[in-house]
């Protein structure tokens, strides 16, 4: 079982089976790591927000730097109108980041390596952004699909392409995160099993590769959280400021 690189993605029940009607909502290892991520984020930022000194402590600095980092990201990509959605994007970024990062610890479970989790997040963002767009612009939001300055001949084609690209947003958003996390963790597992199978004679190469891969995966974990958040900002920007 340990040799199977996909077994790390298995979800299993922790504790009793909980059923609401026909739906199974038992507490699983995935739920456990969602809870751990949430608690970690809340603890870190709670300590980071607690005391206020002119020269911040390390944990306070962490909180404030994250705050200004995301606030700058939002204002750069979506402008000042996106201020009300700051908390959501902050939570989103932190949730994805901490799920990714906690997944880098051996023997943990990576919540974001499950398509259903990333898809629910992406679908929520997609639906939310669409609703915001329609609230802000009414049916004028449909102008998003009609770029200006396109020859009349090409217009039907362009509109179809735009609609398809718009509708594929949740899929691309969710699959990007899920595939990155799954591929990275699978690779690490595969190279780890190479180290074991090649033994002390030939195991050094995959081991060194594994070390390099760990660094890369930490980078990817951060980058994917960042990409997830910034794409959310860009979609939000489309909904808030109709530029086309």
């Amino acid at each position, binding site marked *: 079982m340990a040799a*199977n*690189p*996909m*077994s790390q*993605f*298995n*979800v299993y029940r922790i504790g009793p089976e909980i059923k609401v009607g026909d*739906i*199974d*909502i*038992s*507490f*699983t290892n*995935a*739920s456990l790591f*969602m*809870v751990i*991520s*949430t608690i970690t*984020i*809340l603890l870190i*930022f*709670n300590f*980071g*927000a*607690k005391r*206020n000194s*002119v020269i*911040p402590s390390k944990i*306070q600095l962490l*909180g*404030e730097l994250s*705050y*200004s980092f995301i606030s700058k990201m939002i204002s750069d990509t979506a402008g000042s109108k996106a201020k009300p959605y*700051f*908390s*959501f994007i*902050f*939570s989103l970024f*932190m*949730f994805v980041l901490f799920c990714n990062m906690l997944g880098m610890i051996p023997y943990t479970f990576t*919540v974001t*390596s*499950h*398509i*259903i*989790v990333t898809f*629910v*997040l992406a679908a929520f963002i997609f639906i939310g952004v669409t609703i915001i767009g329609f609230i802000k612009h009414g049916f004028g939001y449909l102008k998003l699909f009609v770029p200006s300055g396109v020859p009349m001949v090409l217009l039907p084609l362009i509109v179809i392409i735009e609609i398809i690209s718009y509708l594929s947003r949740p899929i691309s958003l969710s699959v990007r995160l*899920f595939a990155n996390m*799954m591929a990275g963790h*699978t*690779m690490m597992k*595969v190279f780890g*099993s*190479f180290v074991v199978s090649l033994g002390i004679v030939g195991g050094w190469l995959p081991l060194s590769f594994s070390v390099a891969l760990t660094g890369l995966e930490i980078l990817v974990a951060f980058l994917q959280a960042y990409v997830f958040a910034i794409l959310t900002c860009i979609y939000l920007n489309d909904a808030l400021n109709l530029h086309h």
Partner: protein
Amino acid sequence: MFKQIIFKSLVVYFLSVNLIQAAESGGMPQLDPEFWYSQIFWLVITFGILYLVLSKIILPKISDNLEIRKSQVLDNLELAEKQRNDSEAKLKEFDNIILKSKIEAKNLFNESRQKLLNDINKKKEKLDEEIDKELKIVEAEIEELKNKSPEKINKIAIETSTDLINQLIGASVNNSSITAIVTDVSNKNKTL
């Protein structure tokens, strides 16, 4: 470049072998819908709590902290600027005071020098006067003595000459004739 391609294809091969093995032994657990509802449910719960706590409690605090720090830093800068201006003004005042006191000291010095010079001059004049007076008295005395001395000399000369004549020739000579001779001689001397 070539090595890299070989290496990459090897990696892909091993990966695909592993993935195929995995697929054979049950496939990707991600695509098994058994726990999908549970994951959705717990995602909504945890993310909801995270969002609520962050947006209602923690983020406003951090934002406040940042604002407070910003205003505090601005205040401090302002205060520092003010204090700098104050100290500059004080420095100027201090310089002025030093300049003033220097001038004053100069004045005082000059005044006292003048006073001293005056005093010295006065005393000098007084001394000069006194010296002049003394000199005049002394000169008068000398004059008197001078005036009196020829008579005395004549007298002495007459006496000595009478004595000499007396001893030489043993006879007293008429005083008046001697006197006449002496006065004559002394007059001759005077004219000489």
